[in-house]
């Protein structure tokens, strides 16, 4: 206890020096917390951009469709399949889709489109496409009884085709038998989701209309599932697969988003590795600063140490005194930093950080748009990891000056020859 009191007194004796060292630790801690918050926010956005908008957490397709998507590789969508999926623990909702490739346009312009037949009621339970409406409205619950069918298109596609809400649009797509099907649609809404596949190419229409264009009935190309715990998608996928197999639907493949979006999944793994490297570098830089502060503070007091040793202080005490100083500096600095980091990161998690100044226009990375704000993610892990880490760094940094101090010869130290 004496060591602790002495350590505190020593630290307070030169407030400037201690303050600077603690300040350095605080800034480093805050920076790491903020950085982790940014990276987690970024990854979160990437995953959401892919899964929440289009991919969902699980996808169910015919095994041939998984190999090579082709309009003719659909599967029968019946109540048994739907209920089997819905009844699996962890599954929140499921929605079917018909996917066609073809031309979307009008007499003046056209573009290759992803023509997606959806259920306007269940789709929003699985994805957030409907929340991306920037003009007009989402598809009505049911098809209009007369006149053109409804379509919601991506904002990029609407710009390419120079059309807006209320305009008509034609789709021409390959049907299951290889023939060409077409349909006349009226644009009821424009979506901007941040997912470039949707924003630039999607034409969303009622399942019934898509069935007509593709000459298919009661069948779909994929069913998309939302689950409770997205990181555990592989487990839930296995559970759904087992139930489908047991019900005799073993030609269907259930894939977690990690498998559907392997590039994204890879990136998450890489980012974690990269994080570790960045962490190590920041720790190292901070460590140098702390080391310098503690060593200078120890050196300045060599005379004093000499006196203390001369009056009977043991080398072990001497050692622990300096280590405790380092520990105290670390605790105070890291605690300040944690507070500061939590505050800034918290602010950016609520308000988001506007990245539009850093990217030109409609910049996207792996299909996710960055024209938007990035919302930081703050968690116990991202808060505690840098804080505890820097306390440890401080302790480790105190070891060297502490060790040096124990090697002092009192007579030389007192006379200032060390």
């Amino acid at each position: 206890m004496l060591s602790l009191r002495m350590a505190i007194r020593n630290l307070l004796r030169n407030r400037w020096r201690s303050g600077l060292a603690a300040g350095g630790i605080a800034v480093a801690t805050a920076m790491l917390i903020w950085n982790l918050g940014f990276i987690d926010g970024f990854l979160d956005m990437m995953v959401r951009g892919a899964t929440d908008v289009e991919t969902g957490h699980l996808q169910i397709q015919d095994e041939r469709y998984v190999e090579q998507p082709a309009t003719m590789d659909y599967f029968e969508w019946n109540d048994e399949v739907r209920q089997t999926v819905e009844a699996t623990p962890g599954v929140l909702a499921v929605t079917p889709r018909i996917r066609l490739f073809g031309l979307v346009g009008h007499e003046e312009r056209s573009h290759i489109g992803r023509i997606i037949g959806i259920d306007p009621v269940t789709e929003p339970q699985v994805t957030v496409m409907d929340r991306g409406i920037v003009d007009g409205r989402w598809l009505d619950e049911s098809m209009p009884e007369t006149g053109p069918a409804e379509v919601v298109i991506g904002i990029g596609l609407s710009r390419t085709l120079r059309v807006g809400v209320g305009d008509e649009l034609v789709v021409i797509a390959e049907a299951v038998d290889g023939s060409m099907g077409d349909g006349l649609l009226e644009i009821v809404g424009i979506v901007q989701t941040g997912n470039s596949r949707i924003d630039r190419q999607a034409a969303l229409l009622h399942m019934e209309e898509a069935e007509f264009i593709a000459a298919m009935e009661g069948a779909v190309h994929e069913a998309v599932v939302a689950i409770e715990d997205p990181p555990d998608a592989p487990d839930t996928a296995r559970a759904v697969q087992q139930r489908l197999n047991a019900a005799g639907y073993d030609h269907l493949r259930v894939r977690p988003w990690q498998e559907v979006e392997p590039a994204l999944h890879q990136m998450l793994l890489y980012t974690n590795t990269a994080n570790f490297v960045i962490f190590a570098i920041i720790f190292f830089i901070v460590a140098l600063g702390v080391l310098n502060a503690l060593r200078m503070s120890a050196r300045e007091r060599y005379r004093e140490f000499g006196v203390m040793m001369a009056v009977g202080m043991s080398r072990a005490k001497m050692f622990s005194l300096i280590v405790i100083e380092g520990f105290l500096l670390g605790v105070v600095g890291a605690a300040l930093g944690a507070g500061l980091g939590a505050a800034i990161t918290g602010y950016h998690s609520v308000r988001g950080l506007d990245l539009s100044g850093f990217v030109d226009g409609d910049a996207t990375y792996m299909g996710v748009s960055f024209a938007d704000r990035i919302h930081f993610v703050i968690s116990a892990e991202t808060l505690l990891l840098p804080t505890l880490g820097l306390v440890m760094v401080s302790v480790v940094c105190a070891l060297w000056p502490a060790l040096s101090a124990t090697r002092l010869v009192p007579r030389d130290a007192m006379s200032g020859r060390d």
Partner: protein
Amino acid sequence: MKNSGRITIISMALATALFVALPSAYADEADLPSVDEVNEHLDELYRSESSHAELTMTIVTERRGTRELQMEAWTKGEDNALFVIRSPAREAGTATLRTEEGLWNYAPRADRLVRVPTGMLSDDWMGSHFTNDDLVQETAYREDYDVELSWGEVDGERVLQARMTPKPEAPVVFTRIDYALDAEDWTPIRAEFYENDRLIRTMEFSDVREVQGRQVPHRMRVQPEDSPGESTTLEYRELEFDLEVDDVIFTRRGLRRIAR
């Protein structure tokens, strides 16, 4: 040489691809015709103010088996062409229109024309193995390729070979096209299309019959190299040149009337 009528029905479109005005350095080789001579001859053979044809297109794919489409086609002048599918019923009325302003698909259920973007010219036409470009020959072979003639052999028969290589920096898909022409009347027999010196597809012309004094191959078969089990065959059931074709069918209004 002046523009011959751009005859857009496929065999002729490809034949006219040879119309490349350039002095041939090979003309002095023993009895080898000059490119100009071949051009002139093909020009005489295929130049027409207009044409009308009834065709059968048979598409063989590995996954879907065989599909057969009945079609009707009109051409007029250099730029106008119209293809209409007559059967099967589901596709009847689907049409492709080419005018000097561009290329359109007609969607019969929607009753609308949709412009085909130039980026889709190399895409397949109506699910067949022909491309939009085969059909309308938007690519300016005349401007983009050099032609070199030589004698060769195909299946033991002496043929006139025409090798087309792109001029420097010509915006083309194919890096080489090898034509084999009949040694006597210079009608096309076969064309091989290469991308980066890899054979992509082969087109064969057969069943040569005389129509109004012209020797015209009545059957064209395209065979993609990467799927040997697949092919598309286009056959003329009827073909007539230089008849009255009303300009109005190449407009939206006229097309709708004729397609429906």
